[in-house]
């Protein structure tokens, strides 16, 4: 669920600084301690690449958590000093949901990259400076959320605690999962956890339970002192590798069965997890207006569970039968469309469902497991009545993200008859926590929309560009009009489009007039389209809300992406380039013709770094976005795109191929890029440029 809330309204001073070359927005590297407790106000330190002294606000995702920067007090006449460490004051409401939140800093130099924060229910205990050996183990009281850093190679952190005989405690580590969205953390931790008894002997351990993070639930046989040891499994370390270990004796619910409930329906949910005691089932009613993955806290006596993911479906919903249906003959009969909740409850178990379909019908099979925190790595097959495989899917990819869940977008029924759906774990594992929800629907044309970055920086009076990318499915080939929701007052947008056919990218160009105060606002991008349904039928109206992706600095210098919750628009103070001016914003090309756009940049005083002009968004010559009409390319020989030193004049020559098809007024951007690190650049945009390709004469 995307938050479209206005982010903050912190007071700040315009006169806090004067931009100097070369400026970058901050890139969040870590937060220490990485957790904050519900009902408390606490301080954490955020560390970054690039300056944090210009921070004016903090945004935290979800409800119930606010934060503000705590700048060091300045003596009279003392100027602000650049810093890469800044204290944040976090206030967590008593009813705030525990779990992981995203946060981002708003600074005069733009919006930061994303960091992550854990909201916990137990007291946060920060790691003591010397706790590297068993002898130096830091004594802690439980329950607790122990926060520390695997700060250097060979670092081991020891904690000493007391447990009673028969006491069951859960140790839930979050570390590697807190690093996915750190832009410039090119190596991630791989934590491992050990429990030792008083003599130092290992009594339990866990390496990878929740992805690369450990979890162990252990019943202590004897009362006494015990040790918790946490380190990187490879004995590697990094000043930004934070961890949080939540230790408590409460029930730890990981899943429910069924994993999906129909809208407005009440279901008896079986609780799955650890240390559940007498808590076996619970009744829950799905909201009638909800659809999709819902984060839910279920009541447990006087308490609530931590948030769980339950899928709310609008499909006719059924739960797999308790009768055996593990072979072709006993397959459970279903009628399409359908939503099926099931579990691969034992090793080597297969679930079969039988359905009848007519030749020419097309269906989509979408199996959710990992997306619902199930341990199932699913594989789905469609078989004919004789058991012959017709189609199979193991994993599927959404933009750059690879999911272990299975999805068959379109399967067309080859002949009238009965067919089988087979579901199993790829590795033939099974267990109560191997739940799944399979949605079988008629295959409809649709598209998915992604944003290439998570933030657009706009200097006052200037322009910023954002690229959206579409993936078309199930026969949809049309054009997509882009829209923006949640724009702040004063900021305008020229929403572009994605041309029909092969093109997959379009752009949105934002403008912040002089006088718009620096700040940061989350926005949402939508795409709309029509798909013709044949004569005498209304076209199908398609809508997709874009998923923002953050750029990540890949080891070796590659540019890759990871999904984040929000895209943010930031208006900065004047930075390195004041403007990017172009000689024309209407370019009309005949097939075979070349035309040139003259570009003039205005540098800030003292800024003499290289600037690169472009109309494609690319890294290491790999285009990530190309909004030019098909057949229109940049003629490098006739262009001047590298502006050295104090150069301010450049040009871009666009050439239409002889075969270029006509296109009317496709919105493009002339970009001026300044490298921040090997991967990231600050992209300034010109006002929109509309490129038209005339029909061939």
């Amino acid at each position, binding site marked *: 669920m995307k938050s479209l809330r206005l982010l903050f309204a912190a007071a700040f001073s315009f006169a806090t600084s004067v931009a100097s070359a070369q400026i970058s927005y901050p890139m969040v590297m870590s937060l220490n301690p990485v957790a904050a407790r519900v009902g408390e106000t606490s301080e954490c330190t955020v560390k970054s690449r690039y300056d944090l002294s210009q921070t004016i606000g903090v945004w935290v995702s979800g409800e119930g958590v606010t934060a503000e920067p705590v700048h060091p007090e300045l003596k009279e006449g003392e100027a602000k000093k650049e810093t890469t460490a800044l204290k944040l004051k976090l206030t967590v409401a008593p009813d705030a949901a525990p779990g992981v939140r995203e946060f981002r800093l708003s600074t005069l130099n733009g919006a930061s990259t994303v960091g992550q924060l854990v909201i916990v229910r137990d007291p946060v205990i920060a790691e003591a400076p010397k706790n590297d050996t068993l002898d130096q183990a830091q004594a802690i009281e439980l329950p607790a959320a122990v926060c520390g850093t695997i700060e250097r190679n060979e670092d081991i952190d020891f904690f000493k605690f007391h447990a009673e005989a028969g006491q069951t405690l859960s140790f839930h580590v979050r570390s590697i999962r807190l690093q996915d969205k750190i832009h410039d953390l090119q190596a991630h931790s791989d934590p491992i956890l050990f429990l030792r008894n008083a003599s*130092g002997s290992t009594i339990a351990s866990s390496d990878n339970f929740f992805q690369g993070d450990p979890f162990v639930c252990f019943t202590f046989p004897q009362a006494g002192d015990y040790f918790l040891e946490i380190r990187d499994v490879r004995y590697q370390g990094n000043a930004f590798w934070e961890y949080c270990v939540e230790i408590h004796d409460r029930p730890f619910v990981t899943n429910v069965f069924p994993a999906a409930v129909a809208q407005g329906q009440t279901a008896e949910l079986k609780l799955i997890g650890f240390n559940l005691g007498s808590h076996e089932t619970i009744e829950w009613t799905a909201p009638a207006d909800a659809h999709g993955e819902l984060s839910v806290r279920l009541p447990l006596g006087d308490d609530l569970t931590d948030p769980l993911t339950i899928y709310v479906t609008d499909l006719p919903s059924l739960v797999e039968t308790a009768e055996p249906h593990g072979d072709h003959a006993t397959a459970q009969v279903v009628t399409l469309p359908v939503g099926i909740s099931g579990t691969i409850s034992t090793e080597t178990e297969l679930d079969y469902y039988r359905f009848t379909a007519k030749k020419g019908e097309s269906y989509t099979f979408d199996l959710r497991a990992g997306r619902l925190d199930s341990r199932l790595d699913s594989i789905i097959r469609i078989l004919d009545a004789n058991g012959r495989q017709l189609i199979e899917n193991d994993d599927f990819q959404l933009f750059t993200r690879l999911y272990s869940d299975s999805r068959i977008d379109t399967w067309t029924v080859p002949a009238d008859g009965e067919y089988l759906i087979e579901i199993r774990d790829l590795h033939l594992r099974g267990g109560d926590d191997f739940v799944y929800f399979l949605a079988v629907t008629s295959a409809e044309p649709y598209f998915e929309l992604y944003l290439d970055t998570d933030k657009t920086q706009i200097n006052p009076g200037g322009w910023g560009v954002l690229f959206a990318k579409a993936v078309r499915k199930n026969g949809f080939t049309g054009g997509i009009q882009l829209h923006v929701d949640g724009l702040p007052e004063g900021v305008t947008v020229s929403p572009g489009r994605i041309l029909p056919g092969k093109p997959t990218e379009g752009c949105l160009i934002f403008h912040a007039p002089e006088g718009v105060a620096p700040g940061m606002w989350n926005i949402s991008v939508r795409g709309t389209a029509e798909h013709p349904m044949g004569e005498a039928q209304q076209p199908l109206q398609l809508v997709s809300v874009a998923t923002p992706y953050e750029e990540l600095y890949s080891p070796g210098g590659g540019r890759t992406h990871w999904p984040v919750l929000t895209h943010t628009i930031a208006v900065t103070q004047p930075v390195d380039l004041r403007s990017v001016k172009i000689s024309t914003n209407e370019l009309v090309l005949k097939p075979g013709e070349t035309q040139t756009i003259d570009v003039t940049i205005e540098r800030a005083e003292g800024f003499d770094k290289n600037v690169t002009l472009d109309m494609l968004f690319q890294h290491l010559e790999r285009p990530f976005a190309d909004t030019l009409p098909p057949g229109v390319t940049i003629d490098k020989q006739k262009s001047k795109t590298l502006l050295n030193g104090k150069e301010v004049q450049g040009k871009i020559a666009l050439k239409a191929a002889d075969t270029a098809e006509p296109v009317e007024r496709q919105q493009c951007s002339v970009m001026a890029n300044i490298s921040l690190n090997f991967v990231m650049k600050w992209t300034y945009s010109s006002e929109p440029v509309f490129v038209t390709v005339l029909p061939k004469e």
Partner: protein
Amino acid sequence: MPRSLRFLLPSFAALTVLLCGSSLRAESPAWSVEPADVLLHGNYAQVQLVISRARPSEGGATDGTRLAAYRSENDQIARVDERGRVYAVGNGTTQLVADVAGQTLTIPVSVDGVAAEAQPDFMRDVAPILSKAGCNMGACHASQYGKGGFILSVFGFDPKGDHAAIVRDRQQRRVNVLDPEQSLFLQKPTMRVPHGGARRLTLDSPDYRLLADWIRSGAPGPVADPAKVVALKVSPAQLVSQPGETQQLRVVAEYKDGRRADVTAWARFDSMDEGVLEVDETGFVKVLDRGQAPVMVRFEGQADIGTFVVPYRDNVTLAGWENRNFVDEHASAKFRQLGIEPSPLADDAAFLRRAFLDATGSLPTIEETRLFLSDSDPNKREHLIDRLLGLTGDPNLDIYNDRYASFWTLKWADLIRNNSKDVGDQGMWALHNWLRGAFLDNRPFGKMVSELVTAKGSIYSTGPANYFRINKNPTELAEATAQLFLGVRLQCAQCHHHPFEKYGQEDYYSFAAFFSRIGTKNSQDFGVFGRETIVMVRSAGDVRHPRTGQVMQPTPLEGEPVDSELDRRIPLAEWLTAHDNRMFARSIVNRYVSYLLGRGLVEPVDDMRGTNPPTNVELMEALTQHFIDSGHDLKQLMRAIMVSRLYQLDSQPLPENASDRKFYSHYFVKRIAAEPLLDAVDYATGDPTKFQNLPVGTRAIDLPDAEYPDYFLNVFAKPRRASVCECERMPDENLSQALHTLNGDVLAKKIASANGRVATLLKEKKPHEEIVNDLYLATLTRLPSEAEMQATREFLEQSPSEKECYEDLLWALLNSKQFLFVR
């Protein structure tokens, strides 16, 4: 169809005694002959007679085969030579007569199938002659380029190719069907034309006649589905003998179609211990010395052994011996059989050091040693073993479990070849931690192996999945799995039939077929940079026979094809670790016997072929059964061995057992392996070694990876994990090691460390005797004798300083054999 001219054994043939016209003396058993009746079928049939007389008091027998005088009552039907070998001549029946030591034996003979024009069969008749003559050995015509342009397949694994080489290649110059005697194929081995391989046939031999007849009959090729040999039986299978005695062996082959035939004439014989016995090409054995040794017999891809036991002395007392468990029962029985007197028990100090090093790869601390040596509990050794193995159930006593797990993880990580070069850091650590967790939990070994061979999933999260990255294809997996967990070296069978084993290419590729559907995919569970590989099972994939192209069905060794649609490795794991799969249990037992007793019951420990028998079959079977009954519990297996008197024997040999290298009559001294030795040095000097990328305090036995830039470990032969063979860890001491401990910087710096043991003792200003006691206890796990103590006093007086004295003393102790070896 050409028929075999071999002899068919009577179904009742065994060690039947047929006595005719002789008078038996009550005090001396009579001579007997095997077989009692001779049946010869076909022109070239031969049967080896074996005449013997039992020696009931010794369990042995006297061979009279070459003492006897033989004659045939009708040479037109059968003839017999002076070695007791009978040849078919013509169809009919007759009798053979053998006179031996005044006793006359008569043997009925029946001959049939002798044809006027013999039609030898290529596979059944010709190929065995080529094998017996050594033509298809790797050193002769089966070398890569053959010899003189004549190329045969190794051990005849490609009969069609061999036939073509003989009959068709080089414009058919090797055979002359019109005048067989002029065939190059016959002229060369008889040296009528020069032959680099020397004379392999004589003109008057039956084999020469057979080959000539085969050419004369048109040199026919292999038939489509020849009856294969499925088993060999050597007699006598076991014999108690004496130096200087001889014994004729007899070999019978059993064919797939149920036929049995005497193949002594075409079998190959090898002594497995030429110090004990020698055997010639006819299967005639001469016993040279005392001990126990088998003769390996091979014929057409099958092998068997005959074992000779030559007692060292007639009577042994086994002074002070008391059986503590079944291990001792079988060990003492072997001592009595072989006439070996075992050494007495080791003293407490030697036992303590041995048990610590063997179970945990580490030395006991000074405090632990003092406590144990002063303990008067008669059961303290057993209690110590239980503590070392973590079997007391008391967390306050089971404090060595981590060290136990580390040490045995090291051992198995070596064998499984865990290394970051193949699987990356996280994969290497995942496999290491999985092994360590399994040893910490004392997971049943069968379950561990099952988890390993069926592993799938993330190589970061599922440690054993890395097995499928270390071994990258079905053949590598088949070879590694067979050698690691069955003690079967299958490699030879990839290209040809195993020379010493029953396994051929079909066995090899059928076994490899279990691993034919392993694939990989990517995952982002470890984030976008994780580059995590997922090992998975694909829905299709087969292994084909490289020569025939046939799709091989997954088949256990010596088993029937089995398969699973879900994962072929499931039935493999079920078969491999089944309680009735004694191959598996036996191979693991043998490894642990070697780890604890210094030598496997079978050596090399991972070469458990039928032609390489255990030195104590009964002990092997009893330990195997115990391991199976315990549910493949390694700690119980170790306990059974360690609590035995056999394990606790002194390493000092007696004059009566000094020559024993196989039967554990004294504890076999072994050099401490590189990692435990470095840990022992670290403990003795009080100066821990810092390993690359690991925190201070990490022991060498904790090292997870294959290679570290540590000179000490490399000199002392820490394996690089390039081979699944135990032999990669070289157990032998060498000059480099001696020079390193004598003169190397590493030891010198450790001894002189400012925070080391000597420096600490000096800072504490302890009296001389206490310092010396501590140094002895820290190194040799014992107190110095009075003479040693006196020597140190004198040494102190002569030394320029206390520091120099104690550093020199520690240096001397570290360089002593008592320190460097487990004894």
